[in-house]
């Protein structure tokens, strides 16, 4: 069982539709990050959230950190083919120097 569970594992939608990806845990994290990984490349950081209840927007992407800092969501509005990729959440606990990654959600946006 992973510390961070992402759902769904795979999502296929048409261009223009909305989608939400979830990242859940029973543990509390001091911060949570979202990365996107495109084929043949390493993950690239999209956002970091550190405060319970925090909402951050990056163009059509909206990120939310749960009030209890145990979960997060990523919502994409009017998805475009360029949003296709593997979305990974990663959490850091208050103690220690490790970042724990979720299993990832593979998103395919069809034109």
């Amino acid at each position: 069982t992973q510390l961070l569970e992402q759902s769904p594992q795979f999502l296929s939608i048409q261009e223009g539709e909305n989608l939400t990806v979830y990242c859940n845990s029973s543990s509390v994290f001091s911060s949570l990050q979202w990365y996107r990984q495109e084929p043949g490349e390493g993950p690239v950081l999209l956002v970091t959230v550190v405060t319970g209840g925090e909402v951050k927007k990056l163009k059509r992407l909206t990120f939310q950190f749960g009030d209890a800092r145990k979960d997060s969501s990523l919502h994409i509005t009017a998805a475009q083919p360029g949003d296709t990729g593997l979305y990974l959440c990663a959490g850091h606990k208050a103690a220690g120097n490790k970042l724990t990654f979720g299993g990832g959600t593979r998103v395919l946006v069809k034109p």
Partner: protein
Amino acid sequence: DVKVTQSSRYLVKRTGEKVFLECVQDMDHENMFWYRQDPGLGLRLIYFSYDVKMKEKGDIPEGYSVSREKKERFSLILESASTNQTSMYLCASSLFGTTRGEKLFFGSGTQLSVL
């Protein structure tokens, strides 16, 4: 922008071989990391280093070792490769540790196949 370069994009090795995966970063970062990525499992930390010649075990260090002789270079060593080490290996660096909010910069990965 930070550049993290992994020496090989694809590598095919035989069971029992000693394998070296090399990673170089160009931004004078203190910390470097090795992860392996398997479908559905996300990224799992193998080893990390917070200074030259310093290393710490991650979550899955068994079967691996690392070397950091220079600040910019972090090597992952498979002493005797096994088929269950077939995976995508990702190197990353950060200016400080992965403390709250610290950003990781990743290389493009090395897809290792052990036959």
